[in-house]
């Protein structure tokens, strides 16, 4: 493997109540996805600090996805809608700044939908693979 073909790192931020459950369901159903995908769980997708996403991107994570509750059926009242709006704004910020907004994606899914989760992760992984690695900002600039 050459330097340019280093393994991808993809960060998945899962909400406790839908994303993490969906990942669990996928595990129980025996569905697999790339081992380069690292998952972390938070209480709620609407609670994601913008610095979490920015920091990940800055450190050179190749792709970030957020999985949260489906629209209008959030675990907390309105959490999914709020999260969608907030993260959409985040995407806009990345676009405005000239950063690769396509490396950031969201999914709003039922806790029982393991298949949906895995197919999303796989297609995201393929897209990121096509985009190639992202090197972040470490060591750039002065």
């Amino acid at each position, binding site marked *: 493997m050459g330097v340019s073909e280093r393994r991808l790192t993809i960060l998945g931020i899962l909400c406790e109540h839908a994303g993490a459950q969906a990942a669990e369901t996928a595990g129980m159903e025996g569905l697999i996805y790339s081992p380069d995908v690292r998952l972390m769980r938070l209480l709620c997708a609407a609670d994601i600090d913008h*610095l979490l996403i*920015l920091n990940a991107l800055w450190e050179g994570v190749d792709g970030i996805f957020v999985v949260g509750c489906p629209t209008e059926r959030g675990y907390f009242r309105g959490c999914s809608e709020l999260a*969608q709006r907030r993260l959409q704004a985040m995407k*806009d910020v990345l676009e405005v700044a*000239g950063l690769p907004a396509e490396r950031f994606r969201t999914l709003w899914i039922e806790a029982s939908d393991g298949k949906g989760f895995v197919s999303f992760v796989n297609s995201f992984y393929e897209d990121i693979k096509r985009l190639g690695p992202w090197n972040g900002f470490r060591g750039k600039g002065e």
Partner: protein
Amino acid sequence: MNELRMILQREARRLMEAGQVDVVIGYARGPYAWTTAPFFAFNKNDCIHLTVSSFCTQNLSVYLPKVEGRVAIIAKPCDVRTIIELIQDNQVRRENVKILSFRCPGMLNPKVLEEKGVSPDQAGTVSSKDYPEALYDWCRVCIHREPPDADLKGEPRFLFEKTDYPMPADPTTLADRLEKKTPAERLNFWMGEFARCIRCKACMHSCPVYYGGGDQFDSIEGATGENQPAENFKIVLSFVHSLAGKCTECGACESACPVRIPLLALHIPMYRKMQQRYGGYEPGLSYDEVSPLLKAEPMPQIVEGG
């Protein structure tokens, strides 16, 4: 703008004499040519220092949450919008605030005027009518020249009919020029700009509707210690994201920046994106409509790729 200054002084004095307010927050003449400085008038005699010119770039509503008692505030229309947002956010109570606002001709960049050979002595009178090309970027794109709420609104002594201030012939801003570039070029541009950043937090502290206070520049979760352009850019991006759906393009942050980083070229596109996505929402125009980022409703469907 001389006439307007007289009216505002008179009104501030009247409010003081009537005991309706404890303090008037306004602008006074700044320490050197062109500039204005925020000024607190605690008694009626102080009111003669109050002034308004085409160079009042500070947003005075940043002081509202800090000041106790009943306040009269001189505010540009964009500042009034931030006051409305502060009231929505329960930072300020409407009954404690008297808003003295005016139809705004837009704020001018003294640098451009100096290049045109305008003398600083004219600072009190010059306006965008004479030099539309000197308008700041955010005033170029501004269409809300009238305050959405004011305690003097609707009275006939209001000056500056809208027709007096035509929109500048060329409303393109740095934001538009950047939008035409490729993402890589844009990123490169911003890296160059943020190499100058000295982390003084003036942008964050001069914004009335940003409550973060710039702690991210210090904390280990935020910027790393080394002053790298990328790190500075990251923190400012988090600032921009926090203001999505709240920024009224008042330009306080950019004019506060000691090293002149064009922050509004980040805020203006965000403003437009929010406007497009959420049915033309513009923050601070009414008391009832809250920021779309605070609404727990499904995302409005927009046509992709349009």
